[in-house]
């Protein structure tokens, strides 16, 4: 399943202005303006000027808080987002309740006290962000994160992400029973996302006492999808015909206007499938490279 763009121009806009460039501009802007965040519960608040505000929105970090204040736009960032700006991009300073700037260890200790499983979630978050995926909370879907190919205003999220850790002290307690697995796969199918599992493996010397532990673990990725044997019996025309059958039957059940014998609809689907197959191989390869982890 490739990215589902919203609107005709979205993909072109994304190619013209890659996310990596926007994040780089954000990094420079935050360093230049010496923006500092405030630790508040399990969030970090920061007040941004006009330049940084624009880049924070375009790079999709944090949620704007709607206030009457005119000279500043307040944003609320998650712990993962703020630590990424602080630790990986080194462009944000963070203060505590005493208004004093905190160093890396102090911030780490604060975050761990609020969220003991943070190292695993952060490893997963930074792993995807480093590859220029836009990563947001997956709470609404009952998962840990959702990943977008680009800004959520231009594209639907492709992956629903669960973070698991190895061994018996699995931090999330997910996918340990078939009912949970079935539930997640069904949910993901319904919202047109692929379930992506990021398993965080710890190597020797892992201790959660400092951010150095992040270097002592690696990420293993795998997707879980449902395979339907009824729809995959014919290998040759697997993409065209079964794709058409599935979509037409769905349309048939759920939309009174579409009929199985609706020639125009079938032609449109066939054209669409044809387009995917006739695409320039070099261009496709480039796109696939970008999508790869």
């Amino acid at each position, binding site marked *: 399943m490739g990215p589902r763009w919203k609107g005709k121009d979205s993909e072109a806009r994304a190619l013209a202005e890659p996310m990596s460039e926007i994040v780089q501009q954000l990094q420079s802007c935050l360093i230049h303006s010496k923006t500092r965040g405030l630790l508040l519960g399990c969030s970090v608040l920061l007040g941004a000027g006009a330049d940084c505000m624009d880049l924070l929105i375009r790079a999709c970090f944090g949620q704007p808080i709607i*206030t009457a204040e005119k000279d500043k736009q307040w944003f609320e960032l998650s712990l993962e987002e703020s630590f990424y700006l602080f630790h990986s991009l080194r462009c944000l300073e963070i203060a505590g309740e005493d208004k004093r700037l905190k160093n890396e260890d102090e911030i780490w200790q604060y975050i761990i006290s609020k969220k003991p499983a943070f190292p695993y979630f952060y490893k997963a978050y930074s792993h995807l962000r480093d590859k220029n995926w836009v990563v947001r909370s997956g709470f609404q879907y009952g998962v840990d994160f959702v990943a977008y190919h680009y800004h959520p205003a231009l594209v639907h999220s492709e992956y629903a992400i669960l973070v698991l850790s190895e061994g018996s002290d699995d931090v999330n307690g997910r996918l340990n029973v078939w009912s949970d697995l079935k539930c997640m796969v069904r949910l993901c199918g319904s919202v047109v996302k692929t379930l992506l599992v990021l398993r965080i493996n710890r190597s020797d010397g892992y201790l959660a006492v400092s951010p150095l532990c992040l270097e002592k673990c690696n990420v293993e990725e795998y997707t879980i999808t449902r395979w339907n044997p009824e729809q995959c019996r014919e290998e040759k025309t697997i993409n065209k015909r079964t794709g058409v059958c599935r979509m037409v039957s769905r349309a048939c059940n759920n939309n009174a206007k579409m009929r199985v014998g609706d020639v125009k609809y079938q032609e449109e689907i066939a054209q669409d499938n044809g387009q995917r197959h006739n695409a320039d191989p070099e261009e496709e390869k480039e796109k696939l490279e970008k999508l790869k982890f």
Partner: protein
Amino acid sequence: MTITLIEESFATHTDGLSVLETKQIRPITGIVEIEDLTSSSDGMSDLEVTSEELNDEELQYTSGSIPKLQFRKDTSKARWNAEMGMAKVIEKNGKMWITIGIVRRGKLYCTIEETLFLAEIGAHHLLDVGDTTLFLKDLYEKVAEGKSGCCWETFKVYRHLKSLGYIVGRYGVPWTMKSNNGCNSALQGTTKTSAVSDIYLPNSKFRKSPPGDPSFMLYVTRAYPPSRNEIEELERKCNGIPLKFSHVDHG
């Protein structure tokens, strides 16, 4: 006992709040009741949910699309009292004071969450002891200090419900108190953090004296869903008033 999961639709952006309610189990069917308060249903048929997903994802802001608040001409004035952890209202303007603020000895005070909410919407001008203006940054820092009886998560729930028109009061803090006795202890109670609030449905005829019983009580949960013991203990305190639980997601 059954637990009912209710998904709220979000007025402005996705705060990631969800609310749980406890109800008595039905003696006849014993079926877990699933209630849907939103128009975008959670009953997942394959094509329908795509539109729900669109609703969720459309709430992402693009540059220049952040809504601006309406300019208010009736702004009030209040002075922050650090010892009390509350602001004393000096000039009272606008109708919001019907449902905000507590009255003690004829004076109006507001809690940190009320103060911050009003400051965010530009409804009042806040001063410090020396008459210096306090900005949002200063108020966020006061919430971070944790000395005024409200943490950030509790404030987010407060702000979300107030924005929807609900009337929110702190559990155990009376809206009005005329006599001097017990006045100080009631105000002292405001500096301790309490995760429970009294919630009244939106009501233009709300009166602080007497407010009547709340429509329901709300407990802001932490990292994990409440245990059975916690639920039972809280229900006992509620004395028959319905209890709901809220969870705040971050990011």
